[in-house]
């Protein structure tokens, strides 16, 4: 038990040090490194997807397939919950 706590503390320390370093090294909030993608979406959304809302255009048009995937995640979760809570014939 002692050893386990020691290992846990050690590895958590290392992981958090690395993640904090990572957080410090990423570029500051609101100042993107590169914004070609953002600019493209701002420029072309209205023409290409015909929507005023850029966020919805990204979610349902440019990355619509991801949204289908996310909707499928929900579908999977529902199917899983219904499956797990079904009535089972006891042997």
């Amino acid at each position, binding site marked *: 038990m002692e050893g*386990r706590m020691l*290992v*846990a503390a*050690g*590895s*958590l320390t*290392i*992981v958090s040090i*690395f993640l904090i370093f990572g957080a410090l090294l990423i570029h500051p909030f609101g100042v993107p490194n590169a914004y070609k993608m953002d600019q493209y979406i701002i420029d072309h959304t209205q023409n290409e997807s015909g929507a005023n809302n850029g966020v919805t255009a990204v979610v349902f048009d440019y990355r619509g397939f991801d949204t289908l995937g996310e909707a499928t995640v929900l579908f999977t979760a529902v199917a899983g919950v219904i499956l797990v809570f079904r009535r089972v014939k006891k042997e």
Partner: protein
Amino acid sequence: MFEQLLKTFDTGNGYWNPLVWGFAFLIIFLIIYILRGRGNPSYKRGTEQTKVFLSGNPEYENKELLHVKASNLYWGWVESTKWVINTLKKMHTGRANDYILWFTFMIAIFMLLLGVI
């Protein structure tokens, strides 16, 4: 088509060909057949000779008991490698906490190996 199928499979040092395998199989079969032909002719079915010999102990009435159970198989091996197996068994606690701990531990190891050095 057949030529393509029967092509030799080259691994750099060794090779593998279904034809060679079939040939080897035939030779082994022949050797076994010859050896079997040279067996002791005094062997008779259904006599004293075919009876099970259990170090002088009487044979069980219930045939089921003759079957060595799975947990008793390789008893010697398990006994002699007990130190490994017991360590490994301790690793597999079956609790989600420990799984996460191992995962964190491995991330830390990866970080030390790939990140620091």
